[in-house]
């Protein structure tokens, strides 16, 4: 932890800010932090108040709760009402509103069995302790969390736990970035790439950013100095017209990522088209269980479908996730949509960009 504090050193941050200003040399820059944890870190550390006005930071589609589509929320809310089903989930999902504003918290209050777990493996304990019920783990997250879910599936197999399954709504980051860049209105000049996801992926899957789109991508850590260093490198690449994908977080991320975790992922999952809230369907951007594990696939085993859900009237989460709009510019922000009465998940998730703006900006 002392190491972490070294990356919060005010003098170090000041010198990095000076370096950033030199690289910017008066020009403005629009960078996107892909990951919700970065968004929160920028606010929580007070970095936002120190960044030059010419830096616009856009919050990307990297908060797993934010990008969970209404249809997917509707599907797990459907499960939460069923007999003999226990939902096991990370805490973030409890308050996410589905169609009609109902959430797992409401379902729980009405008698649904919803258990917060701290690790997917905890869901196996639940399954072992409730042999008459089916425990469904809500598999929501990116490349970071999916390997632990794969490890849980492996353990369930080894322990012959037949009453455990996963509703896999996992999403993959690189296809989403490609979709953003294919949008003619995309205003992103550089990506602050997610540190956690990159521990698994390494650098190679982001190579297309510089190669195909001429856009810099820098993998960054989550302490203020990490973020500032990544911003400096992005600004310098833009200044020098030399876009590249580089690793500014080598203490946690190896350039090759974690091949063992990727192998485990591939053993259980395969890419599939997926729905992203506010963005729509992105080809091959999700993970579904391979056919040989259908018995552990909640979609198949519990005969689930993703219903057609019309977009919420007035909700601009999609524009926020694509970096087209800053949260305070949404007409619902802070009025109809607040953390107490969230309209869209960007306001409900602890890592959501709207929630971060609402929570941390002095008014």
């Amino acid at each position, binding site marked *: *932890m002392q190491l972490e504090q070294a990356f919060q050193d*005010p003098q170090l941050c000041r010198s990095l800010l000076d370096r950033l200003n030199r690289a910017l040399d008066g020009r403005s820059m629009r960078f996107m932090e892909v990951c919700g944890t970065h968004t929160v870190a920028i606010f929580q550390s007070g*970095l936002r108040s*120190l960044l030059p006005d010419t830096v616009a930071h856009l919050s990307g589609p990297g908060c797993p709760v934010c990008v969970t589509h209404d249809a997917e929320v509707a599907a797990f809310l459907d499960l939460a009402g069923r007999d003999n089903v226990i939902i096991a989930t990370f805490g973030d999902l409890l308050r996410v509103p589905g169609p009609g504003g109902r959430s797992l918290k409401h379902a729980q209050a009405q008698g649904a069995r919803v258990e917060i777990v701290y690790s997917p493996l905890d869901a196996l304990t639940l399954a072992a302790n409730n042999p008459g019920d089916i425990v469904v783990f809500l598999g929501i997250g990116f490349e970071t969390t999916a390997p632990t879910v794969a490890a849980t599936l492996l353990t369930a197999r080894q322990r012959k736990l037949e009453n455990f399954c996963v509703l896999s709504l996992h999403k993959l980051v690189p296809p989403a970035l490609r979709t953003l860049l294919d949008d003619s209105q995309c205003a992103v000049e550089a990506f602050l790439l997610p540190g956690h996801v990159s521990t698994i992926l390494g650098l190679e899957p982001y190579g297309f950013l510089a190669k195909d789109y001429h856009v810099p991508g820098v993998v960054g850590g989550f302490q203020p100095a990490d973020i500032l260093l990544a911003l400096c490198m992005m600004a310098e690449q833009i200044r020098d017209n030399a876009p590249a994908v580089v690793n500014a977080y080598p203490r946690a991320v190896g350039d090759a990522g974690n091949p063992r975790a990727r192998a485990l992922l591939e053993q259980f999952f395969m890419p599939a088209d997926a729905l992203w809230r506010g963005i729509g369907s992105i080809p091959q951007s999700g993970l579904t269980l391979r056919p040989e594990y259908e018995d552990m696939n909640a979609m198949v085993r519990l005969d689930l479908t993703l219903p057609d859900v019309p977009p919420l009237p007035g909700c601009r989460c999609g524009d926020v996730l694509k970096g087209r709009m800053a949260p305070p510019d949404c007409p619902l922000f802070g009025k109809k949509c607040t953390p107490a009465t969230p309209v869209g998940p960007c306001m409900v998730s602890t890592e959501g960009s709207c929630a971060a703006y609402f929570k941390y900006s002095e008014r």
Partner: protein
Amino acid sequence: MEDCLLLDAGSGGRASQRLISQCFFRHFANPLLERMDDAALLTDIHGPLAMSTDSYTVTPLIFPGGSIGSLAVHGTVNDVAMLGARPRYLSCAFILEEGLSLETLERITADMAAAAREAGVHIVTGDTKVVPRGACDKIFINTTGIGEVFANPVPSGHSARPGDAVLVSGAMGDHGLTVMGSREGLSFLTDVASDSAPLNHMIEDILQSAEEVHVLRDPTRGGLATTLNEIAEQSQVGILLEETAIPVHEAVRNGCSFLGLDPLYLANEGKCICIVPEDKAEAALEAMRRSPYGKEATRVGTVTEGKAQVSLQTRIGGRRLLGMLEGAQLPRIC
């Protein structure tokens, strides 16, 4: 006695008498309680009086640093003390679930008695209900406290003034993280323990030493951040905190970092916030540090003019809002 509680113990008959005399009277022994009239006759208490009530429903019942029993005494004693009062008497109502282990009940009762002795209060009246299995979560305890107000002026959340110093009596978040860790079986949280403690003696010393104290509050549920927001709204002032000055134990900081929680929103059960005029700050800090429960007391911020909100000067010199918590803190996905 049996080894677990039966519904009979709530019948009001002999089974109830046995439970009361063998468990509660034995531990809480004092002449006022033992009179067994419908109410306690208090003849030696002088107004103005402060009164507070709270109900305790914590899971697990016993955790590192305390139990629901000690908590039920400390919580109410502290609430009374925060008004500048000397807590004197407590009432205590139990709602017990059929099947509760009597050994557990005994341990909790003994903890309550020990906590009351340390605080110098007597438990003088009480009530016991036993409900069928499933109707409550093992044991709920309500305590009501009454105390003699001696502070003048009486500290209040409405009395913070621009320029005042904001002090805390120690590190934040110990209780909240301990209970969460015990409940969820988070084995890596081995170095955390609840700070649950009676603060009334320390408060008395602060009030005598600092002479003028504007606000005293214990930052329980919602933690330091939420409590300071309440004070900012009540007093219509701003509060500016220095992040680097706020004490948080290393184990709590690490645990929170892992779980995606903020220690400034976690409950404390043995800490107080003290807001005093600038020239009284040193005296108040010295008084806190004389108490075993205030050794890490420190100044964390200043009351300011302006909007009723709490801001944080961060470690790197930035500034951001420290708002009120919305709902419970939930561990994050990644």
